[in-house]
């Protein structure tokens, strides 16, 4: 009987064949933490071991609270920074021109590699599945234990197969697809499960689109979400890999799945997650014209160059009607968007370009809403209070929907724009 991706990766790491439901103890290839690394350090100290299991497997990325908004933020960052010096951890990304949101950094900088196991103290660690890794979010005490012991127990998950066919219609993108999938499967539809994306359309999706889809796997409860690496992904991995011994692993043709879904991309339309849950799906058409107070384009979900370029195509030579905040997912993307003239076009259109990081999405800084305000956001969560104010309302949407909405100050359907622009 064939094996799923999860069974193959965990079986190789465990050193023997495994099937869904078994418990394995495995050594991760990379472990990523952000500012909550400070709490990991605090717990790690309680174990009484002098050094981490392998400093070359630990990645620390300051993203949630950079530049520090409070003394508390600054102290947490200092705790992490000092620890990297003490332990000889060189995979460290501070507030500088190499940094960004940790999930972007993991893929961009070659930590998320095909067939590798990535653990992260953030639920959106599953983003790294876009590069073919088995990437799983865990809690911070759990990470402290991994730093000390060098392994973790994992249950080999059952797998959901999602088959993607066809091509998107103009104005529709990967974000619209994942909002629809989360709406269909609901917030617990993939609890404890691995999600594999298959099909001719999945094979054609670019890395940025794959990251958007995998990023939101957790919004249906998935343990991980993954694509079979494409040639683009492999070229990127070979160029940037931070370790040598990696190989592509993928599910067998006759692997056993607990559920299967098929999506024809022509059927996908611009979508929304309405307040206050990510599975509260609606089409843009259902709420068209809804007044909006703020637009946010960015985050680890949709802050890549491709996303910013789309926004600039909409806004070029025109002017936004509401506050519009742009957050590139990393400094590398920021720099490329600068060189390509994308940021200038967005600025000329009245957008504010913020530094890379999690600020508005995590509700810690840089875009907190007033009571009763409505934000159209390209991020991944719309929970009550998510953007820092429990009296506000967040609608999740694609970068194209967000940009068209920014232009009109009211929720707008990008398919009309795409027809005119012939995209």
């Amino acid at each position, binding site marked *: 009987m064939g094996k799923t991706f999860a069974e193959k990766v965990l079986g190789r790491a465990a050193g023997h064949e495994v099937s869904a439901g078994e418990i394995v103890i495995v050594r991760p290839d990379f472990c990523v933490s952000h*500012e909550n690394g400070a709490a990991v350090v605090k717990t790690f100290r309680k174990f009484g071991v002098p050094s981490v299991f392998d400093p070359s497997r630990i990645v620390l990325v300051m993203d949630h609270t950079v530049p520090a908004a409070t003394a508390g933020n600054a102290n947490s960052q200092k705790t992490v920074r000092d620890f990297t010096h003490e332990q000889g951890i060189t995979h460290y990304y501070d507030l500088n021109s190499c940094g960004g949101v940790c999930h972007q950094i993991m893929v961009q900088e070659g930590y998320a590699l095909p067939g590798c196991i990535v653990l992260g103290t953030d639920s959106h660690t599953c983003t790294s599945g876009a590069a073919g890794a088995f990437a799983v979010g865990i809690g911070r005490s759990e990470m402290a234990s991994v730093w000390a012991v060098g392994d973790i127990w994992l249950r080999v998950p059952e797998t959901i197969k999602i088959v993607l066919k066809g091509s998107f219609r103009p104005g529709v993108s990967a974000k619209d697809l994942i909002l629809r999938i989360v709406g269909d499967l609901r917030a617990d539809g993939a609890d404890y499960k691995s999600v594999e994306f298959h099909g001719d359309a999945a094979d054609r999706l670019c890395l940025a689109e794959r990251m958007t889809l995998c990023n939101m796997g957790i919004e249906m409860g998935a343990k991980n979400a993954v694509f079979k690496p494409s040639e683009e992904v492999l070229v990127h991995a070979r160029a940037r890999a931070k370790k040598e011994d990696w190989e592509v692993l993928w599910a067998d043709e006759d692997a056993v799945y607990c559920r299967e879904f098929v999506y024809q991309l022509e059927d996908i339309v611009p979508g929304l997650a309405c307040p206050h849950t990510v599975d509260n799906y609606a089409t843009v058409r259902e709420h068209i014209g809804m007044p909006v107070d703020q637009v946010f384009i960015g985050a680890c979900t949709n802050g890549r160059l491709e996303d910013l370029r789309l926004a600039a195509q909409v806004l070029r030579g025109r002017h936004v009607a509401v506050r519009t905040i742009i957050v590139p997912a990393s400094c590398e993307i920021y720099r490329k968007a600068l060189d390509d003239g994308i940021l200038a076009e967005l600025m000329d259109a009245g957008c504010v370009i913020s530094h890379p990081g999690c600020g508005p999405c995590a509700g810690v800084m840089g875009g907190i809403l007033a009571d009763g305000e409505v934000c159209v956001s390209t991020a991944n969560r719309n*929970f009550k209070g998510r953007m820092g104010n*429990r009296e506000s309302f967040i609608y999740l949407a694609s970068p194209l929907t967000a940009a068209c909405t920014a232009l009109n100050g009211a929720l707008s359907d990008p398919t009309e724009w795409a027809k005119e622009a012939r995209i």
Partner: protein
Amino acid sequence: MIAGRVWKFGDDVNTDVIFPGRYTYEPMSDEAMGKYALEDADSAFNQEAKPGDIIIAGKNWGCGSSREQAAKCLKERGVAAVIAKGFARIFYRNALNEGLLILVCSEADQIAQEGESISVDTERCIIRSVHGEYRFQPYPAYVQGLVEAGGLIPYTIQRLREREGEK
């Protein structure tokens, strides 16, 4: 045996409303976290919950972020147990790691009304209320060691000692 007063919640209660993001990135003591428990969940719980109280919820309790504070703040607030139809994966691990008692019961919503008292027999896996007796699932065998050690920190210390002994 545990006995306590019930607070009821629905499905998909996420970690952002259990422990809001605006507090998540501020360093604070474990004890301080209890004050913010369920602050954004539209409930009197945050103001009125007492040590020993029990939470009963629907499916997928603790979905969303990996923030461990969501489990820790309930533990620090003195919540004796969270009984739900199901738990989100990361919350489930965090709760076991923090030593917060979490019980999976398919009939959770029928056990009691808010404010009623219930008792939990952890040995026999039975919850009792004025409405009847309800079974909950025992912890899977593979987490027994972790639970018996009292959480992840003592369990990891135990594992490190065993490893030292093998050398």
